[in-house]
């Protein structure tokens, strides 16, 4: 026998279910008067530094049908590559930027939309610069444990080419699933849960 490590096991995940909006975006679920505003609705204000962008997209199942009951959260650095988090040790992030947003997919057309800023570059563990990216987390009915992915920017070809995470993707044809094309100030990022165009999901 050896000494016990006395570590606990993480609580097991369960699906968020079809009514996730009741808890996380009650105003969207037409439950008014409990919270003044749904958390994560606005990430920027008029003092936020950086280039304003819009991200729109859908989450599609194995038949290509958009999920109309998913909920997306995003987490990203500010324009200088700093996170608005107590674990950020490199400096103070832009106080006018939350870095975190939450949006349910539309109950009719399945679209999500974030008004945010383009993030700066964040170093990888070994000091190499990562390309600008946004971390996505997707939950829904039928998803037993939240799915993490990343969105990279279609107009950052050079930075994407040197990104240490993208460089790890063995099947190069799949890299494109993480890169959102730009049109004006809007990036479109569709997330495919399953099948030929399946988005790369991470175990982080």
């Amino acid at each position, binding site marked *: 026998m050896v000494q016990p490590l006395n*570590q*606990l*096991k*993480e*609580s*097991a*995940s*369960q*699906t*968020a279910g*079809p*009514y996730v*909006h*009741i*808890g*996380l975006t*009650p105003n969207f*679920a037409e439950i008014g008067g*409990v*919270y*003044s505003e749904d*958390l994560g609705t606005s990430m920027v204000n008029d003092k936020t530094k950086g280039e304003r962008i819009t991200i729109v997209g859908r989450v599609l*199942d194995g*038949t290509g*049908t958009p*999920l109309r*009951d998913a909920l997306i959260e995003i*987490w*990203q*650095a500010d324009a200088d590559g700093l*996170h*608005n*988090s*107590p*674990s*950020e*040790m490199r400096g103070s992030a832009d106080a006018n930027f*939350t870095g*975190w947003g939450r949006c349910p997919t539309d*109950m009719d057309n399945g679209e999500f939309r974030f008004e945010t800023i383009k993030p700066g570059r*964040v*170093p990888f*563990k070994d000091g190499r610069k*990562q390309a600008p990216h946004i*971390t996505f987390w997707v939950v829904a*009915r*039928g*998803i*037993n*444990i939240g*799915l993490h992915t990343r969105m990279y920017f279609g107009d950052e070809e050079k930075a994407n080419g040197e990104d240490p*995470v993208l460089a790890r993707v063995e099947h190069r044809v799949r890299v494109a699933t993480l890169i959102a094309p730009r049109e004006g100030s809007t990036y479109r990022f569709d997330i495919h*849960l*399953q099948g030929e165009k*399946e988005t*790369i*999901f*991470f*175990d*982080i």
Partner: protein
Amino acid sequence: MSDSQISNRKPETGAFFQRDREWHPQAYTPWYKTSVLRSPQKALLSLDGSLSEITGPVFGHNILGELDNDLITNFAKPGEMAIGPRIIVYGRVLDERGKGVPGALLEFWQANAGGRYRHRKEGYVAPLDPNFGGCGRTITDEDGNYSFRTIQPGPYPWPNGVNDWRPAHIHFSLFGHGFAQRLITQMYFEGDPLIWKCPIVKTINDKAAIDGLTAALDMNATIPMDSRAYKFDMVLRGRRSTLFENRMDGN
């Protein structure tokens, strides 16, 4: 958001313990039918937490309203209350090292006493309770403690098998201190015979993991002649020590 409740504590900068994905439910669990078309078929790409994932949002008490942790009254008309068995749910949020997680935002949602959710897409015949909304939230204290008051939700039929019923449950969403700790789960109630029949519960293979989602009745925390109490502790991922990677931050 920037007024962190944990500002007096040493910030933690280590990566998280690897998730045990055999302990968690698998993505593809065909007895829970919706998972069939919503589960990735390719392997996840492993990524030891970079700054983008070991950081995460932390929420201050300024986001909370006075009744956010009282579902009996937070949607009720003045002077009225939700109908159903009155309970207190309390416990701690810990990490895998057994340390309390302070400043963790918990959000919870549930059906009413009859198993009816207040949601546009829900058509179960059991009626809505005009005084029950079904959502609440709170933030853990310095030691990771939380509590809220609600009514015990009823079981609920759902179109999976021809006669499937969810056990009574409360959904929980948790933020730790890093985005990689993000977790959504469900709390079940001690002694409910529906737990072991439920296809969603059975997406989890390990009985010990299911027991870990089952709240215990705690008669020592009840309020006599008022409310019973259920204790529900939750565990978020632990953080690796940075002992030798960076002595300045070592713990």
